[in-house]
């Protein structure tokens, strides 16, 4: 394989962005559909190249291809190299990113049809995909960080795509700022690691970490710093608040960014730096604890949300928590020597990334389904839906498959990766295992609550209350083929992606098709999931129980969940207003006006005063200047006479 292929995978979408921005938007704005075609074509080619890379990697020894790298920056003795990593992890991520992105681009051509920002949308989408691919391919922390921030930038642009809506603009800013908190830790960790090891190269850092050449405390702090970046990007507690708000963006953006790729960047980062994490018990315990807690924490909020995209958003956070949990618990096993190092490194990546791989497909499917529903009904509120099964059969079937997959029903994709996480949690961290099990139940409940409220029963949208609504009631019909086809493909993938030997390819174990059913944990989790589905059915479809009375009985809990634990209020009212605005900003303002400005004004004032004094010497009298010259001459002569 030519060494330019991985670079081409990254550069194709980037050129698509360049072409759309500098040629199509200025000169061919009357034919915006060209933008969609170019984006789709470039990402499609990237997908084909990614498959080629995957084939090459799977036949290469150790599943690693060595690639040439180039000198990028030389600062004194510091040389920053720029190259690409092509190993099993990168190859899998390339497939995930390009395939989901391709399907989303196809879908977007239908969803965004007629939007005035059509070209801009595809330019950002191309750029986003390019940055994400660059992030996956980066072989050192500096270029990885560059692409990392690039991904953050594009998410800002895409969440705020409809920037004329105040909510979207606010959500974009919030996403940018909240992830920036985590990025600060990541950057600090990069610089800290460099100051201790003198290298940015990820491979070298792995060797140093595994050889014990980096001190334990250094390693722990570096790993936690890197993890803080992952917390921000992957919306883990306590920096999860941006993701639900980010649903203000177009739905395909949510599918691509907030289900399949950008939030996966955090997981990918932890997986990429897994040897560093696995060398520190504190670090992996943190990862596992944050992941496990986030999984159940987000699931509780998903139980009560009425906006279909918000339910999916919280479910994404929850599933990302699962992935972190998977990485963390295997890391705990490695750090405790319960798993041999050479097995554990591949296993941890396999457990986390396998779930990411499956999740990318079923979650983007669910988002596209939500977008399809919205396309028909014009709303995201599940209370105003219902009965859509009859008018939108394809959307219904694919959404149902996605839901079953996320819940983890054998033999759908979600089952296989979730079982891996639960197994290892049981082996290495029992407390977190129980949290994860409860989350399985909750996941089943909230997903099927959405399914039943949206697709079962009768349509409730027309009697929404306000007069004239029926006159503008959207015509209920199935979405166009360009939208349904990607959903169909994703539905197939959501079924079969778990059967692919991704886990063993990454270095983990894989189950035989029926052998997985021999595990008691699998049965327990499926029974819990079935109970969750049953409860949802009882409440929202068969109406055996009244959801109203249930809500009243658990009123405090319901309020707690639906108000999102008041964390947004905590951040905005307490931290931002009290601590930042009233506290630190006042202090900084005082420092700025008194000390910084004071020094500047003091220097300026001193100069003015000195100038006022000195300018009296400038009389404009030539003879005074002449006298001064000759006094100087005399001084020089005097110096010669005295010292010479």
């Amino acid at each position, binding site marked *: 394989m030519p060494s330019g292929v991985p670079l081409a995978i990254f550069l194709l979408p980037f050129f698509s962005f360049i072409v759309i921005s500098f040629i199509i938007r200025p000169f061919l704005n009357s034919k915006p559909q060209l933008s969609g075609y170019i984006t789709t074509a470039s990402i499609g080619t990237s997908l084909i190249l990614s498959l080629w890379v995957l084939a090459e990697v799977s036949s290469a020894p150790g599943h690693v291809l060595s690639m040439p790298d180039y000198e990028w920056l030389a600062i004194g003795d510091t040389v920053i190299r720029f190259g690409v990593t092509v190993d099993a992890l990168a190859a899998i991520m390339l497939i995930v990113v390009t395939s989901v992105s391709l399907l989303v681009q196809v879908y977007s051509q239908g969803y965004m049809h007629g939007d005035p920002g059509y070209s801009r949308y595809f330019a950002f989408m191309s750029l986003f995909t390019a940055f994400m691919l660059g992030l996956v391919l980066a072989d050192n922390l500096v270029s990885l960080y560059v692409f990392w921030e690039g991904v953050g930038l594009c998410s800002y642009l895409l969440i705020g795509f409809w920037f004329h809506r105040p909510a979207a603009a606010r959500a974009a800013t919030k996403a940018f700022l909240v992830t920036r908190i985590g990025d600060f830790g990541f950057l600090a960790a990069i610089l800290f690691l460099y100051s201790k090891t003198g290298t940015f190269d990820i491979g070298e850092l792995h060797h140093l970490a595994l050889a014990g050449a980096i001190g334990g405390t250094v390693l722990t702090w570096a790993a936690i710093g890197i993890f803080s970046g992952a917390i921000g990007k992957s919306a883990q507690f306590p920096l999860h608040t941006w993701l639900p708000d980010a649903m203000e963006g177009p739905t395909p953006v949510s599918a691509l960014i907030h289900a399949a790729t950008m939030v996966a960047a955090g997981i990918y980062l932890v997986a990429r730096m897994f040897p560093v994490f696995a060398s520190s018990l504190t670090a992996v315990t943190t990862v596992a604890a944050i992941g496990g807690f986030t999984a159940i924490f987000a699931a509780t909020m998903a139980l009560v949300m009425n906006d279909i995209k918000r339910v999916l958003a919280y479910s994404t956070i929850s599933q990302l928590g699962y992935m972190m949990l998977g990485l963390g618990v295997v890391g705990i096993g490695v750090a405790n020597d319960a798993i041999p190092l050479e097995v554990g490194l591949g296993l941890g990546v396999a457990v986390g990334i396998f779930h990411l791989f499956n999740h990318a497909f079923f979650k983007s499917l669910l988002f596209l389904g939500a977008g399809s529903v919205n396309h028909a009904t014009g709303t995201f509120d599940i209370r105003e839906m219902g009965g859509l099964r009859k008018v939108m059969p394809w959307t219904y079937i694919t959404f149902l498959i996605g839901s079953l997959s996320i819940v983890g029903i054998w033999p759908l994709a979600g089952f296989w990766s979730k079982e891996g996480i639960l197994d290892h949690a049981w082996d290495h961290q029992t407390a977190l295992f129980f949290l994860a099990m409860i989350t399985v139940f909750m996941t089943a409940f909230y997903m099927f609550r959405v399914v039943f409220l949206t697709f079962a029963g009768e349509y409730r949208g027309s009697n929404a209350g306000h007069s004239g609504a029926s006159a503008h009631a959207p015509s209920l019909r199935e979405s166009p083929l360009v939208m349904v086809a990607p959903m169909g493909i994703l539905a197939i993938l959501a079924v079969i992606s778990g059967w692919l030997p991704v886990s063993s390819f990454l270095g983990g174990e894989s189950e035989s098709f029926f052998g997985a059913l021999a595990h008691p944990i699998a049965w327990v989790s499926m029974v819990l999931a079935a109970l969750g589905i049953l409860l949802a059915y009882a409440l929202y479809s068969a109406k055996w129980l009244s959801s109203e009375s249930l809500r009243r009985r658990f009123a405090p809990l319901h309020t707690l969940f639906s108000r999102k634990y008041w964390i947004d209020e905590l951040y905005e009212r307490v931290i931002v207003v009290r601590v930042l605005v009233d506290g630190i900003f006042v202090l900084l303002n005082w420092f700025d006006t008194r000390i910084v400005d004071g020094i500047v004004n003091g220097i300026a004032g001193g100069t003015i005063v000195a100038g006022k004094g000195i*300018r009296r010497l*400038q*009389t*404009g*009298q*030539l*003879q005074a200047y*002449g*006298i001064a010259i*000759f006094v100087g001459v005399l001084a020089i002569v005097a110096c010669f006479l005295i010292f010479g």
Partner: protein
Amino acid sequence: MTVGLEHFLILSAILFSIGLYGALAKRNAVVILMSIEIMLNAVNIAMVAFSRYGHLITGQVFAIFIMVVAAAEAAVGLAIIIAIYRSRETVDVEKFDLMKW
């Protein structure tokens, strides 16, 4: 006491100091220019004296160049004085303070 190099140099120094005083103390710009001419001549005397007692013709060459510069300076200086006089009706340098801040 025979007349030697020192005599010429001291004569040159005396003339130079007189010119210096005149250039620094007088108010009439034309007189200042005259004083400067005296200073240049004083320097020329020193040059020629060095040429004579150092037995080097170069000193006289320098004197010639000084004369050239003095002539140019006199021409331009007097032109400036006349131009200023035209616009300000005076050649009193104490009233020329345009170069003040």
